[in-house]
């Protein structure tokens, strides 16, 4: 799935000040490509991923996915787009603490008729990444690495064509970092998903062939 960013700028406005995050980003990410957006903390990597995922609105410019300008979509169309096309792996996992891992994973497809089928595929993949036995636990009963894997499972339940991963290896030890990188690469190869990863970790970035370095506003 082709992702095109045209003159993309984002500024946050508060009552007292304006925070300029980035401006005039022009970028094209090809179908099935694996791209790392690299840069220091606070540079706007998460914001950029949010814009690509249709979860935030740019101050100016366009996000075009497969020829569709996201700014032209209504709220429900955007929700449908996020559900069908995007798998988002949040930096802080964003798992609901009251639900078991398997219920968190099922959330994006909860209202789908083929939920059971999707879940059986997820169980299969969960056993490949060593998570099958942990799915009956609540997030707070899981390690950070396990929570990250639950977040990945939730992101892929609808077989999205774009996976956006925000600092997927942050706070993970080397073993877990390698495991997550392996899983993400596997997703790209197995499902043909376009993979966009935001990270400030050089080791993680070096694992992927394409890198886009995000620079400061100035």
């Amino acid at each position, binding site marked *: 799935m082709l992702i095109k960013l045209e003159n993309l700028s984002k500024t946050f406005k508060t009552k007292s000040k304006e925070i300029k995050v980035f401006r005039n980003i022009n970028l094209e990410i090809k179908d099935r490509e694996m791209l790392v957006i690299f840069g220091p903390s606070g540079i706007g990597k998460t914001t950029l991923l949010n814009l690509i995922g249709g979860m935030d609105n740019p101050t100016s410019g366009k996000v075009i996915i497969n020829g569709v300008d996201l700014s032209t979509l209504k709220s429900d169309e955007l929700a449908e787009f996020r559900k069908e096309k995007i798998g988002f792996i949040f930096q*802080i996992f964003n798992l609901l603490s009251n639900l078991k891992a398997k219920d968190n994973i099922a959330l994006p497809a909860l209202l789908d008729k083929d939920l059971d089928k999707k879940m059986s595929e997820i169980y299969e993949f969960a056993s490949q990444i060593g998570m099958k036995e942990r799915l009956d636990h609540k997030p707070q009963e899981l390690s950070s690495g396990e929570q990250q894997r639950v977040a990945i499972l939730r992101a892929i339940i609808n077989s999205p064509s774009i996976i956006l991963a925000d600092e997927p290896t942050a706070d993970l030890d080397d073993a877990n970092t390698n495991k997550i990188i392996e899983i993400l690469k596997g997703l790209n190869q197995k499902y043909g998903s376009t993979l966009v990863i935001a990270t400030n970790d050089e080791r993680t970035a070096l694992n992927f062939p394409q890198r886009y370095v995000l620079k400061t506003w100035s």
Partner: protein
Amino acid sequence: MLIKFAVKNLLTRRRRSLTSLAGISLSIALFVSTLLILKSAQVAFEKPIKDAGADIVVQLQGEPCTWSIVKLPQNLNPIPLENLDKLKSMDDVASAEGSLIVWVFSARPPGKIPLQKKEKNNILSKIESGELAGKACDYGEPGSFCDSKGDNQSLADFSPIVVAGVNPEAKDVGPVTSNNIQNLEGKYFSKDDTFNTILDKDFARTKNLKPGDSIVLGWRYFRIIGIVDAGRDAKIAGAQAFIPLKTAIEITERGNIVDIIFLKLKSGANLDLVKQKIKKMMPQNATITTSSDFLTAISGLSSLTQNLMLAIFFIAIFFSLLFIIKTSFSSILERSGEIGILKAIGWKDKNINKLIFIENSILGALGGMIGSIGGYAASFIYKTNLPSALPYYLNPYPPCSQHLVKNTLQVSIQFSANIFLSAILLAVAIQTLSGLFASKKILKLTPTDAARQI
């Protein structure tokens, strides 16, 4: 699936669910108990005046009590019959009836001839056959009291009896009438009855009397023609024995008087206006009780105080409902992070709204039910603090009476399906609407902004 997820959400967020449930239950309990108690009190307080078939009761305030074998209650003054006629002729009055409530004592008059042993059986058979009805009680052992059996009686039987003289031809208005008398054993008065009486069932049982027996009321023998079971409710001009009005007037020996007048108004008549007119027609010491100020008469509270209490009740209800809104609103706002995540992973706004609607409906219905049951229970506690006796002037009885007239208002908290259903619907409506209102606010945010608040 959404319902299952909503239930799971409620069960897994126990503290939040219980807080909401407690808030709704408490508010609804207050709402239900207030309505139930108001409704029950209104029914109980209005019953005596409704039972008498009247809209207005007119009396004159009493004069000091003087000794007499048949006398007016100590707080009531005689009302000449002309006044009754005047009231009857008023345009707005559909019907009016007077009653004469008297207290009668059964002591044998001094200096009367002691009953001789050989005459006793003869006299007794005459008493029992009712042949002596209307005759004075001239018989008995020295120092004894007049009694239907003519025997020596204990001092307890000396206690006064409350007797009400009623118009035998009255159809709808009065303490007992041909149309509103229920549970009558025997028969009702006929037009020309004189020394016939109808007894209250409890009183008759205490005295071991039945229809066909005789009883001495004010030194006169009366033949018992009926026994009425008036139930346990307080009655205006409730009595232990009812006799024809003209006989009551005769044995009272105070001229053509009554001491309580019942008025039924024509439909559409203005109660307050008629009350004002009656005030002008009657002496200054007239007590005029209408159905609308009956609560004041019973509770002893002024209408201002009642209004104030009602206002406090409604303010309490208002704030308790506000509490539901606040709890529901805050509970949803707290979940903005969760809602943001749901949006981010592709949930449409309408599905999020459905989820909130289902969750809040369940909470509202459960809270409404628990609150209704709680309110029903609480209303029993309120009930014990309600004024429960008719004011003395409406139902006077002698302080020394062994046989008290029924003066207690039976306030019974009645199950009201309407109130329960309304309470549950109200809880569901407020809970869901405030929840949806709060979610609308969150759904306006982008998923990022909403999720940022987790």
